[in-house]
């Protein structure tokens, strides 16, 4: 159980490192390792919050499967994020 969680954390850390490198290239500003680690930790913990929220949204709608409707609810607090997620969802649906 512990190593499974640590493997997930390592994968998130790797992915965050890659994304930060893309932003660094685009903006011509570097990220030191500690910053990448902090963003990775924030991301991992945020995923924990998301998982709980998604589960609750699905259960609230009496579903046992989480759907993209639940994901949109996650982004409900920001119009631009909701718009972005909705467009992304339609893209994927096609």
């Amino acid at each position, binding site marked *: 159980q512990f190593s499974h969680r*640590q493997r997930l954390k*390592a994968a998130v850390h790797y992915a965050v490192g890659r994304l930060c490198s893309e932003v660094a290239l685009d903006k011509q500003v570097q990220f030191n*390792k500690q910053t990448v*680690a*902090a963003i990775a930790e924030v991301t991992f*913990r945020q995923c924990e*919050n998301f998982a709980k929220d998604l589960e609750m949204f699905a259960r609230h709608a009496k579903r046992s499967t989480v759907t993209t409707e639940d994901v949109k609810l996650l982004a409900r607090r920001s119009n631009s994020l909701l718009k972005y997620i909705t467009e992304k969802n339609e893209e994927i649906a096609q």
Partner: protein
Amino acid sequence: KDGFLSEEEFNLWKRLYRLGDGDQVKGVVLPEPHFPSLQEDAMPKEPTAGIRQLSLSEWRLWQDHPLPTHQVDHSDRCHHFISVMQMIEEMRQEEDECSYERKIKPFLRMEDVR
């Protein structure tokens, strides 16, 4: 009774709590959330005179440990935030090598990433 202030309450409010022209700070506002990564280049609005824009980061030095609560505990999100701020505090002195990375790297499996 109808959800609004009675006349007496209104007067009390006006006298004790209402921020008005006579006050140096006429109102407070939270910063507008905007997402630069979504190409949302919000024009930084000129702060209107007398309106104090509250800062969410001004007191971050206090935010690396849970402050006392009364009847309602801190939320999960708050605990997450506090622990990340503690992590940042611990990493601040690190030069190059990253302790977080050193602990986590052994668990990396590329198949997990894909």
